[in-house]
């Protein structure tokens, strides 16, 4: 019952947020430009094409009519055609979604696996050289431009040392598409060669993306742990002689991690943003590479479609994280 109320509540906020996102994108694409049709038509379009597009998009109508039509078309899955591929933008985007999702999900898992223990240790050894070191390292991790880091890694490990592939998801063709997640598909097909190959292709992009994500997780876990360690309940548990191990690894950690869960949404945002350039550097055939190609070829519909899709994904992730948080934190009553 509690969960149901929570879900309904969050969903009620989801709809206006989504509308807000569409309003922002609409404003950017229909209100800011002097002639939106020219953008959509691309650089080499003839005046006739532009005029045709203007009529088709109803750009001569009042703005609120345009906005209404815009929402309807998006709900209909219509984001226009890409001038670059000639296919509907939605199709292009959806076909690239699994690659990006696989990359970001693996990165999130890696970041949690590395970041949580480091954050715990930093908090337990507060003010030790390890804690100070981690502070500087995490700040540095958040200061690195990921496109630059990606290029350096590629330069060193792929070009100079030849240890990792230059880019892409696999050598040659991927596994037969089942889920679109190569790791999972390779596992289902029991194709160990492709699995290994996919993993090798993944190392550098994941490392690049994991640096800022891990730094964020370390910092939040540390702060959460310290907060909990200084709480009254830890004082009480200590006073009653609960074993230190139990206090830290059960009582404190659970409290700290509940805070960290809320950060996963934020981290997902960092990753999606980072994926744009990291994918482009490693030629990873996901949304990011698509976006960069679209930017370079002034493929306007594609860029706006990308914005809507990534924005929506981000909102959905936050919705899920919120609901998850509400479920694991018993204090949440809404």
């Amino acid at each position, binding site marked *: 019952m509690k969960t149901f109320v929570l879900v309904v509540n969050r969903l009620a906020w989801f709809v206006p*947020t989504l509308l807000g996102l569409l309003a922002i994108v609409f404003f950017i694409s229909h209100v800011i430009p002097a002639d939106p049709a020219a953008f959509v038509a691309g650089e080499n379009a003839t005046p006739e094409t532009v005029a045709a597009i203007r009529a088709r998009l109803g750009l001569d109508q009042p703005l609120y009519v345009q906005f209404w039509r815009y929402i309807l078309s998006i709900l209909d899955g219509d984001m226009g055609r890409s001038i670059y591929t000639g296919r509907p933008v939605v199709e292009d985007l959806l076909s690239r979604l699994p690659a990006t999702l696989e990359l970001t999900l693996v990165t999130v898992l890696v970041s949690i696996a590395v970041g949580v223990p480091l954050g715990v240790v930093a908090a337990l050894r507060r003010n030790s050289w390890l804690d100070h070191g981690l502070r500087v390292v995490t700040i540095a991790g958040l200061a690195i*431009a990921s*496109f630059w880091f990606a*290029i350096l890694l590629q330069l060193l490990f792929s070009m100079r040392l030849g240890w990792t592939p230059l880019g892409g998801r696999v050598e040659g063709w991927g596994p037969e598409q089942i889920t679109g997640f190569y790791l999972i598909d390779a596992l289902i097909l029991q194709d160990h060669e492709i699995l290994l190959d996919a993993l090798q292709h993944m190392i550098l992009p994941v490392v690049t993306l994991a640096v800022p994500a891990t730094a964020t997780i370390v910092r939040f876990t540390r702060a959460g742990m310290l907060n909990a360690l200084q709480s009254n309940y830890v004082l009480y548990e200590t006073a009653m002689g609960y074993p230190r191990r139990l206090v830290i690894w059960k009582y404190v950690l659970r409290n700290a991690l509940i805070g960290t869960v809320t950060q996963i949404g934020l981290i997902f945002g960092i990753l999606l*943003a980072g994926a744009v350039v990291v994918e482009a550097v490693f030629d990873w055939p996901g949304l990011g590479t698509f976006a960069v190609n679209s*930017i370079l070829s002034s493929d306007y519909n594609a860029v706006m479609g990308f914005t809507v899709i990534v924005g929506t994904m981000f909102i959905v992730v936050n919705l899920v994280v919120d609901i998850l948080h509400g479920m694991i934190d018993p204090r949440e009553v809404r």
Partner: protein
Amino acid sequence: MRRILRKLAEDRAALFGLVLIGLLVLAAILAPWLSTHPGDVTEFHTAQRLTAPGAENWLGTDRMGSDIYSRLLYGARITITIAVTAIAVAVAIGVPIGLVAGYYQGIGSELLMRVSDIFLAVPQIVLAIAIAQTLGPSIENVILALSATYWPFWARLVYAETRSCKNEPFVEAAIALGCSPWRVMVLHILPSISSSIIVRTTIGMGGTILTAATLGFLGLGPPPPTPEWGRTIAEAREFLPMAWWYAAFPGLAIFLVVMGFNLLGDGLRDVLDPRLRRAARHDK
């Protein structure tokens, strides 16, 4: 203020951050004098293209044969211009919105905050890409794109602080004394929440510089031959693995500057945020 400066002086990491920021500012101001080839922002020497770092070109040359060191110094000017202006605009939009929405609570405030929530619900870089793509590549447009996506951070922060501040005795006293809302907001609330704004702004500088560099890398920044750091890295990709210096040094410059703001912001937060202040210890 004295106490804050003293505490900050004890934080070696924060001091180092301050030094890095100082270097950036110096580099930007003194670019014409510090650079070895001041003309190379616009001049090409195709005969010396892609020379490795050496006595003549300390950090090597780029595809046009221009001196990378000199171009980096001029690039610092662009970075500072973009970051400072974009943040100033974002603060100028966000702070008043947060103040007013936090002070008057009503449907209007609720709406303002919802709007900023929606902005915050989308990764900044994604919105910035969409805006920059629409406006076209130029410094002004990068600044516009950044301030349009970053202002909600300050609106949210100031809103929350104003709300909790409004119930403080000194604010209630000011209201009771008949000060105008405007006066209360600017003379009473704003000064007392300024430290949070400063911390947020310092950290925001780092993030803004990174986003600006990313826009540059994507070709959405100021067009060539502007020596913008992010775009320089994009140019350099073609010449890897040979001309490693071409990609390495601009990225290092970005890293050091962002690191500077992050270190300083982190140190400032420790000093200014009483909730996080490190407790006194016997061994100090």
